[in-house]
């Protein structure tokens, strides 16, 4: 079967185009691309735990928020430099990921869904009400990120930052998926009992799955703090968690490419319908339903039937 698009060439061309983007696109579009990059990181991470490892995570906005607030707080209140604040945001989120992984060891299905949802709600409630720490609903303003002599105050500069981090994390994800851990995740999803019987350590891999996806969420959050310059409790709730879920369902579960596709679609949709809030939700719901009925494996699943896009 002849491949329609030689993979490496396509990727190279895409990356080159992306690198040149800021030269000919206007600022609003660059801002959207930044949001898309952040969403991609989020979606890829969520897919690792939900698509590959089969664990339900309905509170993912909490990891995103943890990263965002940690980075924001370190930069705004302690004036720590961005290149420490961002990774720390990721690491704090990872810790929470481990914590959520613990109840996950004994739970599955709707029970796990509830626990993750509860974590998400608790997180949002805490950041909303703990005024002293987070300024509550007023939101926290984040100063511009600085890396050496470069100040990331314009969207165009931020674009490169987001691009580099996004690409690195995508590569990481592809590697994880093909590694022993990735295979363990899939085994874990298909049958816990069978996986255990061939010696896969469930505890270890469940915790890794949650922690890793939390890390991605945290980094995405930290990036968001820098791109949006403002963190606000309303951005980190159930509605957001559900939209991340939609990203991976529409794009395709257990597929890094699918996460990318889904992230792009949802962000674009949100921007297009931004002003018409109620219609946004309606289109959302209808789109989700249609995709579920007609493309149950997501867009990526459909595409891999048509073009030979490799499925992970």
């Amino acid at each position: 079967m002849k491949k329609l698009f030689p993979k490496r060439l396509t990727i190279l061309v895409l990356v080159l185009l992306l690198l040149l983007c800021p030269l000919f696109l206007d600022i609003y579009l660059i801002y959207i691309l930044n949001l898309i990059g952040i969403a991609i990181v989020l979606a890829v991470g969520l897919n690792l735990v939900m698509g590959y490892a089969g664990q339900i995570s309905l509170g993912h906005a909490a990891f995103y928020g943890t990263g965002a607030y940690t980075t924001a707080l370190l930069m705004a209140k302690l004036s720590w430099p961005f290149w420490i604040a961002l990774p720390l945001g990721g690491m704090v989120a990872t810790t929470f990921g481990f914590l959520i992984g613990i109840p996950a060891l004994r739970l599955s299905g709707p029970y796990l869904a509830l626990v993750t949802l509860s974590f998400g709600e608790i997180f949002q409630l805490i950041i909303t009400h703990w005024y002293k720490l987070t300024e509550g609903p007023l939101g926290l303003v984040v100063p511009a990120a600085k890396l050496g002599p470069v100040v990331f105050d314009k969207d165009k500069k931020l674009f490169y930052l987001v691009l580099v981090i996004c690409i690195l994390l995508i590569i990481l994800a592809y590697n994880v998926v093909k590694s022993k851990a990735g295979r363990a995740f899939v085994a874990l999803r298909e049958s816990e009992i069978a996986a255990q019987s061939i010696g896969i350590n469930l505890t270890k891999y469940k915790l890794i799955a949650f922690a890793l996806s939390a890390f991605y969420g945290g980094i995405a959050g930290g990036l968001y703090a820098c791109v949006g310059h403002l963190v606000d409790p309303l951005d980190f709730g159930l509605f957001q968690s559900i939209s991340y879920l939609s990203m991976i369902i529409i794009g395709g579960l257990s597929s890094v490419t699918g996460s990318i596709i889904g992230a792009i679609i949802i962000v674009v949709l949100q921007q297009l319908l931004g002003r018409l809030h109620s219609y946004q939700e309606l289109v959302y719901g209808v789109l989700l339903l249609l995709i579920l009925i007609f493309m149950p494996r997501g867009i990526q699943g459909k595409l891999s039937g048509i073009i030979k896009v490799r499925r992970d």
Partner: protein
Amino acid sequence: MFWQQVASGLASGSLYALIAIGFVIIYKATDVVNFYQGEIAMVGAYLGYLMYLHLRLPYGVVVFITLIPGAILGLILERIAFRTLIRQPVLSMIIATLAVGIILKSLARIIFGPVVYAFPPVFNPEPLSLWSVKITVQSVWILITVTAFMFLLFLFFKFTKIGLGMRATCQDKETALMMGVSVRGIFSLTWAISSGIGASAGVLLAPLISVEPEMGLVAIKAFAAAILGGFHSFPGAVVGSLIIGVVENLAGGYIGSAMKDIVSFIVIILALIFFPGGLFGKPMVKKV
């Protein structure tokens, strides 16, 4: 005062119980978590509001009549959306219910606007006083209705042929089919019953929580309550709901209203850590 908090807690708990029961019905028959349960209550509430206020029908009649549009909506949804997903993994259906919920909510917002409608109080708003504890008449009715439903559904699932068919379908669709259970029929019936009851529940809830597109959010607590009770048990759902209602109120009373929700969710997480199958849950043995 402690007992007042408990009584108010039981009252709120009974609200959750109305919706929690709907969750259990669907889960018992189809293994699906119905995430539009809250929104169907919202639909029922809007319909009830229109019937009560504009058509001037008596309240009791409204509560019963709403069963019909609720059931019909459930049947339609099952036919267009869920039936095609039978062969998919359960997650697809669950997300589909989520999508339906989103659609219902946004339709309500588009049709009725984000305005909050106050359902006029049906019964005497003066609370009854039992042993220095006050409870409203509406709450008492809700408690009675919930208990009645709980018993009826429990008996239905345990002893009737259709009920057994539902449990069989949930456990193993193929085998149930082979045993002569009409799986399609069961699915239709399940969604019809759950949506019908859900819509009625909305009418019962409406006087206590105002009618607005977001009112379905109360279903999150109801979901939690149902899981707490062990997701496939009606008495469990009711008990779970009452527990959450009481815990919430006690937390609100003694710690502070901001902590109310936080404490409920913490309690839920702890409960599930110690009772992974819910309080009344029987761990289901899954074969490899």
